Every structure is written in structure tokens, then in C-alpha cells.
């Protein structure tokens, strides 16, 4: 515990990060670290869910939970393709009639970026009695600090992915946007007096 107290450079969420750690029985488990920076949300969640279920071990058994502990860092840097940042909506119903609530990905990332990955992984796990225990094994952190530095951690290397080639229309749009950005930069450097509003990309 002393080592953990020393490693709390990040505040407050220590309770949530260490919550329920005592309930997890076996400590023959490995601690795998996933870096979510620049990863696509669903593909990352798919890999996490296989590791959490223990499906990469030869001693897998469906009636007991044998997955490794997964730590996800840099959760706020996870990417999505297409227009999902504004168009992906999370719905939930509170139970009262007419109270279907919704929230877009953008707002959710502003509010709590760890929930995005947690929901993605949780919805990929099989809906059985082990689901809550598996949820307890998943620890997600928005930035790259975590209080588990004193454990033997193993970074998880994502399998290589063949990214699909861009469709011609999307590619032309991207080239147009790039050219516009270049022109604006050049125009801004030539005329220093004028204030030009440069378009900046929203950082995900």
C-alpha cells in the first residue's frame, strides 16, 4: 500500500481504480496494459474483450472467469472513423414513461471518456453471470497515469491491421481539405498584419 500511496501522482480516482480489487480471486493473472492512443474504438474493444474473457489462454473454461486484468490508458485519445464523433448517440431509458435519454459521443467524451471504452467492451462480453466479474477486471484511465505501477505489467501489442484504402470521393475531399489548410498557412505567413481564422481540427 505504501508503494501505491507513493505512485498516486493522479488524484482522486484512486478509490475507483482500486475498487473491488480484493474480490478478484486469483493473483496468477497477468496485468496487460492497452494504450488507446490513436486506436479505433471498436477494434480496440474487441481485443480487450478477448483478453478479459481469457480466450487467449489454452486453459479457457466457459464456466469460470480466468481473464487477465486489463488496464487501458489514454482513453481520451481513442479515435473513431466517419462522423461518429457527432453522430454516434448513446441511448438509455430511465424507466419512467417518455424518458428516453440520449447523449452523443462528443458529449460523453467531454463528460467521462472512460465510459466510452467501458460501454464498448461491456457490450462485447457475453451476457452471463460472469459479466460483472469481468467488468471488475477492466480498469480504464483517461490519461497515461495509473496507480498500478508497482505490479509486473505487460504491454499489449495490437495485431497489425490492414487499413482499407480510402474511397475516391473521400480521398478527394481529404486532399481538398489538406490543400485548403496549406493555402491558409501560406496566406497567414505572407500577410502577418491580417488576422485570418484558420480552421483547426477538433482534437479527439
Amino acid at each position: 500500500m505504501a508503494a501505491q500511496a507513493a505512485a498516486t501522482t493522479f488524484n482522486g480516482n484512486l478509490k475507483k481504480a482500486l475498487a473491488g480489487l480484493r474480490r478478484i480471486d486469483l493473483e496468477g493473472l497477468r496485468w496487460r496494459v492497452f494504450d488507446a492512443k490513436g486506436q479505433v474504438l471498436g477494434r480496440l474493444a474487441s481485443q480487450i474483450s478477448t483478453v478479459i474473457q481469457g480466450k487467449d489462454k489454452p486453459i479457457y473454461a466457459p464456466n469460470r472467469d480466468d481473464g487477465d486484468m486489463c488496464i487501458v490508458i489514454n482513453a481520451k485519445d481513442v479515435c473513431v472513423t466517419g462522423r461518429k464523433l457527432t453522430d454516434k448517440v448513446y441511448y438509455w431509458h430511465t424507466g419512467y414513461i417518455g424518458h428516453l435519454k440520449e447523449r452523443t459521443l462528443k458529449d460523453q467524451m467531454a463528460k467521462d471518456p472512460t465510459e466510452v471504452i467501458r460501454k464498448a467492451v461491456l457490450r462485447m462480453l457475453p451476457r452471463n453471470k460472469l459479466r460483472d466479474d469481468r467488468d471488475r477486471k477492466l480498469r480504464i484511465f483517461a490519461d497515461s497515469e495509473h496507480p498500478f505501477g508497482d505490479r509486473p505489467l505487460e504491454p499489449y501489442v495490437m495485431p497489425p491491421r490492414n487499413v482499407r484504402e480510402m474511397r475516391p470521393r473521400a480521398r478527394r475531399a481529404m486532399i481538398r481539405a489538406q490543400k485548403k489548410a496549406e493555402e491558409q498557412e501560406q496566406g497567414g505567413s505572407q500577410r502577418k498584419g491580417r488576422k485570418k481564422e484558420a480552421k483547426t481540427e477538433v482534437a479527439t
Partner: protein
Amino acid sequence: MTRIKRRRRTKISLFASSFRGAHSRLTRTITQQRIRALVSAHRDRDRKKRDFRRLWITRINAVIRGMGVSYSYSRLINNLYKKQLLLNRKILAQIAISNKNCLYMISNEIIK
């Protein structure tokens, strides 16, 4: 008269002697639960074969995916059949548990 009933029912209650609660104490419930138990056993004898084959396949898949990029159980089985290697899934799963490298060696031999 009662002797015959009692003899029949004690035989049946011997079967259900390890059941929980009223299922091992009340005679009518005992006969019903015995029937259900035997039905489950009959049905599950066939299911057992299916379930274990699923488990072996999952285990083999888990180990084989660690071998390389985009190598999977399906490709392994395809190669096995092409080389006419008669190892079944049970043995492959046992090899996967006890000695992973052996399985990797086998699969490397088969790929060629």
C-alpha cells in the same frame, strides 16, 4: 399390500438420496425428480460430446492465434486435412495445454 409399494418406492428414493431438500424426502416429489434427472442424463450424454468438442476448438483457437498474424483455427484445420493428418481436436487441445511449442511445430510443418 403396503409392502410392495414401500419396496418400489425405497428403490426409487435410493436413486434420489443425494438430492436437495424435499426432492430427497417426499415420495411423490422423488419419483418426479428421478424422472427429470434421468431425462437430463439421457439428453446430456449427446450434449457432452458436443460441448467438449466446442471447448477443444476454443482452446486450440486460443493457442493457434498466438502463432502469427492472421493464423487461426480454421486455417489449421484446413492444413490438417490437406496433409491428411489424423489428429483429432481432443488430442490437439491436450497438446495445446501441455506443450504449446509442440503444437507450433506441428502447425509449422503443416503449413509448408
